[in-house]
């Protein structure tokens, strides 16, 4: 426990100090979300009234902004696009990363170190370095301006990240387990699928969660490679297409931001510990 020399009073004071210190951080972290929700439920007349208190809803809660979002815009199409892109890109990347991660973490062959370094360097390449040439690559592949442009390009950041994370998990599995399976006559592929993968499930869950989150949240490629309204992702649709002309309709914009964030919030609340451990493993085990 605590070092013991400190008195009860000092401990209470220190705890109170801790809580008091925490409040500004919590307010800073959470206020934008509170403001997002509250804006989406306010009447326009109240939103654009300089006399109103912006922290509260004083003239009644309305759902007009949400109704507008769902019935007058292509919001549901954007959500569908985001879902397809995230699920396909994450699954494909997961399979590629499991194979690569296992190979790099467990098998000995010439060049394995260099491949590992290549994956690590790719992991550090920011998407903004490559978005211009990639925008031409998707044109040549004939998938420009479709959701497939994103399905194809998202693995470029998902695979290095997932491989890196999975390597860490694979290394924690004792080698003897695999050797036993091989001695018993299992093929290498069977060993990987039936013995190693079940033991790496926490890592696989983690990679899947991060993969889904990263693809759902992606903005640079989604803005750059797709311009047709019907093919946009939720994040880009809300950010770019709910602004009519040059006017920001904040009520519906914030309603869009709330709903498009919701899938991530739900997953996040459910799997919080995986996010924390994945975040730590991904960066620190580097």
């Amino acid at each position, binding site marked *: 426990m605590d070092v013991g020399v400190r008195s009860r009073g000092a401990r209470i004071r220190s705890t109170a100090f801790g809580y008091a210190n925490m409040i500004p951080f919590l307010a800073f972290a959470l206020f934008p979300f509170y*403001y997002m929700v509250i804006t989406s439920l306010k009447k326009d007349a109240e939103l654009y009234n300089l006399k109103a208190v912006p922290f509260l809803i004083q003239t009644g809660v309305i759902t007009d902004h949400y109704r507008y979002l769902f019935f007058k815009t292509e919001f549901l199409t954007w959500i569908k696009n985001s879902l397809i892109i995230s699920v396909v890109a994450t699954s494909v990347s997961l399979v590629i990363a499991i194979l690569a991660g296992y190979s790099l973490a467990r098998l000995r062959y010439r060049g394995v170190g260099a491949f590992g370094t290549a994956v690590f360097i790719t992991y550090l390449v*920011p998407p903004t370095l490559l978005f211009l040439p*990639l925008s031409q690559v998707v044109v040549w592949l004939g998938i420009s301006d479709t959701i497939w442009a994103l399905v194809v390009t998202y693995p470029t950041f998902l695979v290095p990240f997932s*491989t890196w994370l999975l390597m860490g998990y694979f290394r924690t599995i004792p080698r003897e387990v695999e050797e036993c399976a091989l001695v018993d006559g299992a093929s290498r592929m069977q060993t990987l699928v039936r013995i190693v993968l079940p033991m790496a499930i926490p890592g696989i869950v983690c990679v899947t969660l991060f993969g889904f989150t990263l693809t759902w949240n992606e*903005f640079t490629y989604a803005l750059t490679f797709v311009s047709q309204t019907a093919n946009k992702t939720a994040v880009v649709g809300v950010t770019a297409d709910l602004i009519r002309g040059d006017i920001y309709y*904040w009520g519906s914009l914030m309603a869009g931001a709330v709903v498009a*964030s919701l899938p*991530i919030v739900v997953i996040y609340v459910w799997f919080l510990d995986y996010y924390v451990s994945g975040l730590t493993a991904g960066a620190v085990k580097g």
Partner: protein
Amino acid sequence: MAVSQRALEATGLPRLGRLARVREWWEQEHVFGYSLIVPALALILGLVAYPFGMAIYFSLSDYWVGSPGQFIGLQNFRDILGNEIFRQTVYNSFVFSLIAVVLKTVLGVWLAMLLFRNFKFKRLIRGAVLLPWVIPTALSVLAWGWMFDSLYSVVNWTGIHLGLISPPGPNWLGMTSYAMTAVIAVNVWRGLPFFAIIVLAGLVSIPREYYEAAEVDGANSWGRFRHVTLPLLKPVLAVVVLFSTIFTFSDFNIVQVLTRGGPVNTTHLFATLAYQIGLTGGNLGQGAAVSLFLFPMLAAIVFLQLRYIRRD
């Protein structure tokens, strides 16, 4: 082949079919290893290395959207280096990255130390603190855009009512002297959780005996922080700072959604300027040249990571 076949027969083993021989070949460690890495390698070569080569080629040609141009040597680089907006962007990028990374480091260590204490609702508080990092950045930045609205800014409203700002308050995103502050604030907001959570992991791994020893030696809490916590956090901090520097330096989302580089280019970063020149303007050659300025920073950080950090 024939010899090995005969040798097999000589040993009295049943003849292997073609499939079985392929299988046996695949069971070799190096063959299996290579074949598993091939998909990832193909992806990296085709969609990372090759586009990177293209970026270099673009930057050396007058390539416009829809019309592959000719090789023009270093003309694009000469053009952008002589361009006032580009020089402003270089300055912006360094100011933005330096201030944002320093703030995130200091506040991140502070927040991590707070989170390290034994709180009630520990999990809940950690979850709340990490939230800005998880929510789609473009969407939360949109909310910040509304908070910094020119007329109905809640930041100004609060400041005015607390007597900190004289009405009507600054137009955060429309005035050259304030826009960078706003952009940095949002970047810190979004990146702070990342720092805090990783530094927290570093704090957890420091053995408690070190603190007890320091306390016995008469160190006060600042002394313990200065002589125990900080030196032991150094490796973790180095990783986070390097990592964050790359992604702060190459940031796109925050500036693109909040200011699009304005007012008068005072918040343009390399990525947003490259987007504006290369895609909005259609001059892919020059846009690629601008985005390639991200490369030296990336290379330096990769070098540091490989040289000093991965060795441990």
